[in-house]
């Protein structure tokens, strides 16, 4: 019986973004990683290529993560006071593809650490690790601009991924990244048109879209995940169909979202009907990652070693179908 052919052919390829620079490339990373380059939807190896598997980044903070629930925090017991040791432990024990250093301590309404302190820390983390690095600001526009003004040159040549630019605040970070050879995360608030708008703004000031990843925000499983699932799916479809403003790799930053949910946090003693929270927390984070990976995410930023391990394994399994 002749079955109709339902392979889809797409006009365009998602751009490839390389993060990290080896010694040869002017940096100090032991290897770089590439994301993107897909010519089809996630893991559909029978009709197109997925040259690079999605990658996972693990969060490291510049201050002790007091807001993390115990199940996430106890994994980094003993190192969370020292971000350099923490980053080192991450790389050596938990084996993520990247470290995502979050400069939470720079928040003017928190510890208000100075840009100098942040830049020094970035230098130390670079020295202590060998995998590519994401550096994420505290979220306060003015402060982030001051901080990146020192952090970006301090990491010059390392080809880091810096985040984030938004509709309201993109000039400084885009200019710095261009000058110091970094990539940037373009953030938009659960709105596909806004995602396109941020990319347009970056392009308008001369930032190449090939050096950028899209971050449409990424709520946790059960808290609006379906909106972003569809936004990522529509973004990827638009990119494959030829919209150059939507043809970038996609990032999901799920750690903070997941570990704020009741499902990840509430202990079994308080909620016996939800089962073992020591497994449920990491499972919630992993399932959130599984979901975004099926809608087009290329980079997922996470917290718990067990969920990273499980997500990595699922990616490996899904990539096995390549070339069959």
């Amino acid at each position, binding site marked *: *019986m002749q079955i109709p052919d339902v392979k889809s052919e797409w006009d365009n390829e998602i751009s490839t973004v390389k993060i990290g620079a080896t010694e040869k490339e002017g940096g100090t990373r032991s290897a770089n990683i590439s994301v993107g380059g897909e010519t089809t939807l996630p893991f559909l190896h029978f009709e197109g290529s997925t040259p690079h598997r999605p990658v996972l980044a693990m969060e490291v903070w510049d201050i002790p993560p007091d807001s993390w629930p115990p199940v996430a925090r106890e994994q980094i017991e003993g190192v969370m006071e020292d971000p350099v040791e923490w980053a080192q432990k991450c790389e050596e024990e938990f084996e993520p593809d990247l470290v995502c250093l979050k400069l939470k301590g720079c928040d003017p309404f928190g510890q208000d650490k100075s840009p100098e302190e942040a830049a020094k820390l970035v230098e130390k983390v670079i020295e202590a690790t060998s995998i590519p690095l994401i550096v994420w600001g505290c979220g306060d526009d003015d402060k982030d601009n001051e901080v990146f003004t020192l952090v970006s040159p301090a990491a010059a040549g390392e080809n880091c991924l810096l985040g984030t630019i938004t509709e309201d605040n993109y000039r400084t970070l885009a200019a710095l990244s261009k000058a110091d050879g970094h990539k940037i995360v373009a953030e938009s608030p659960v709105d596909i048109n806004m995602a396109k708008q941020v990319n347009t703004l970056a392009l308008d000031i001369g930032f190449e879209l090939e050096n950028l990843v899209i971050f449409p925000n990424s*709520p946790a*499983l059960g808290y609006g995940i379906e909106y972003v699932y569809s936004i990522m799916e529509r973004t990827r479809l638009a990119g494959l169909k030829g919209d150059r403003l939507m043809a970038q790799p996609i990032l999901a930053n799920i750690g903070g979202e997941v570990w704020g949910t009741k499902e990840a946090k509430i202990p079994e003693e308080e909620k016996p009907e939800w089962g073992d929270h020591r*497994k*449920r927390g990491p499972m919630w984070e992993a399932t959130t990652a599984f979901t975004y990976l099926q809608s087009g995410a290329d980079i997922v930023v996470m917290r718990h070693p067990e969920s990273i391990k499980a997500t990595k*394994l699922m990616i490996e399994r899904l990539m096995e179908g390549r070339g069959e």
Partner: protein
Amino acid sequence: MADLSAMDIYQELPQTDCGDCNFPTCMAFAMQLASKQVSLDECPHVTEEAEEALSASSAPPMRIVTVGNGNSEVEVGGETVQFRHEEKFYRPPGIGITVRDGRDRDRLNERVERVNQLQFERVGEEIGVDMITVENSQLPPSEFGELVAEVNDISELPLIILSSDPESIEHALKEVSDGRPLIGKANGENWRKMAELSEKYECPLTVAGEGLEELADLTERISETGVEEMILAPDCESLPNYLQTLTEIRRLAVKEKYSPLGYPVMASTVSDDLFQLVADGTNHVLKFASILTLDTVKKWQILPILTVRQHIYIDPQVQNSVEAKLYEVGDPGPDSPVLFTTNFQLTYYSLEGEVEDGGFSAYITVMDTDGLGVLNSYADDRLSGEGIAETIREQGAMDLVNHDKIIIPGLVAMLRISIQEEGDWEVLVGPEDAASLPRFLRKEWEE
């Protein structure tokens, strides 16, 4: 062939509003036909010419199959799109927990009891597993039949009864066919007998096959015997193989209207690893399974899969709302801040999450805006100083606190004065996005 609109279809219908199709009017029936949710056969009065004109457009691209009956029946299939944003996903996959016949009876009963417990409540909805899959691998037919009867006695859930031996299936059906279980799997060898049983006991049938050609070939032969309600159960050995096969079947059904594979699909997990089992289940729910069988009764594994299903099957065309009322987040007291927002689900839960995350307690007074977010509500003229003040007053937040400050979203800063005038409170303009709220509260509230 282009899809016809409800109006085009209505023109071809008798327009008598007789109700014999179980819809109140011909127009209502036409609308269901247009969205491919019913078959034209439901109308007993349709003319031959009309049938011809509508046949290509009227057939649902994927059949709807019902398992079980009464309160616990599960309707699956009838999907019309590959991506949920194109329309919506219609029928959440039925999730069945596997029970094998090799276990001793006490352990088996205990497992069934545990399956019965796999019901949860999330964001105001009941979610739970829907079925029990009884698999025959060890017991002879008559004993298997007894065992199925026993499972049926201790659970209300509809059954999926699987055996390669039609005799086992018949013994089971003699006991439980009233419950309209899903039976199978029919394969290249046993399909005639399986089809007979499906016909005789009026139960839907799963059809297994290696590869799409074998599957299509089998469904064609079985449908010739008169069996219409089938579920495809492709033999897949790996996760990427499942993804490819289920993607192809979905595309064939909804894009090519390829009727030999226009049936719902059943998938099961392929990994024994505890986390990978959930990975398999999540992938199948996202990518095109209509029935999912899982071999676990662990709540921490089931709950995330049920939650993926709950959210991915939300209709993207409908704004999702939370109840408009006063919410207490954390443990608020007289000194706690009072926040105002609209009842778009994502807006509310983002706000609630940020308050909790920041370690704050607060009252959140939520206005009914038909599930629109703050900016959309404003653009849609649903927010006025008067309306907001009335909501705040009715819900009584200000009676619970010893201050007169109310925080409104930064996106509607322009309403500050009018709320202040209507309500006689001090109105503070909060941040534009929930994520900046903890910083705002630390700065504006705690100082």
